[in-house]
């Protein structure tokens, strides 16, 4: 869970957040490229979550498996939800929605790492 994959996800999300908020500041709606970038980020998150779930079956369960599972579901659903909302809002505010989502995603990944590091005996 603490591997380079989660670091990559966090960095990608932060870079995208800066990009989307810049687009919003310039009064641009999410472009095709912006939406595709969010899809790529979502795919990265899917890989991250699959690796985390595989880790669950590989021993080393977090003490709080229920919370961990809840966060995994939220994390995997988060970017796709923002994508749907952003597509509904083809104005600058659609870019803000993507930007906010990309700011929240690192928090979710960090929380996942935190929960995963408290492994049950």
């Amino acid at each position: 869970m603490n591997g380079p994959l989660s670091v990559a996800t966090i960095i990608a999300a932060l870079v995208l957040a800066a990009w989307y908020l810049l687009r919003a500041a310039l009064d641009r709606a999410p472009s095709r490229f912006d939406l595709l970038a969010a899809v790529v980020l979502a795919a990265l998150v899917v890989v991250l979550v699959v690796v985390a779930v595989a880790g669950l079956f590989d021993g080393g369960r977090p003490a709080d498996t229920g919370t961990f599972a809840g966060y995994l579901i939220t994390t995997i659903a988060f970017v796709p939800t923002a994508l749907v909302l952003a597509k509904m809002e083809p104005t600058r505010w659609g870019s803000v929605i993507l930007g906010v989502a990309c700011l929240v995603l690192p928090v979710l990944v960090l929380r996942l790492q935190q929960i995963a590091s408290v492994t049950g005996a």
Partner: protein
Amino acid sequence: MPEETTATRPSDAALGSGLGRVLLLVYGIFALSASARALVQITTHFDEAPLAYLLSAMAGLVYIAATVGLARGGPRGRRIALISCTIELIGVLIIGTLSVLDKGDFPDATVWSNFGSGYGYVPLVLPFIGLWWIWRHKPE
């Protein structure tokens, strides 16, 4: 959004504008995270800090109410949003102050502990934005 739904929606409904939708997204995230957290706390270790966990649950309900109220708009949505945003503001200020002064009463964190520092202080800022939204869209 199709025309027929926007025609019947009150003009101050947050769902009807871009900025409002962003506000609803953030409120929705907090409604979800506060209530999910409370649910986990209450179902798994309620005895450890019943007061803090009940407060978490209440905070979650208040966020849900605020989200719904802001989304609906109109006189009723407005009143719901006004009441819940006010509770949020008072809650974050009182719990924030208490948790800084005396850690003993709040051994486990709620969304409002330390003025919401665990959530990037967003819980402190959010009620102000909610109240600003209500104020900006007050009826003529």
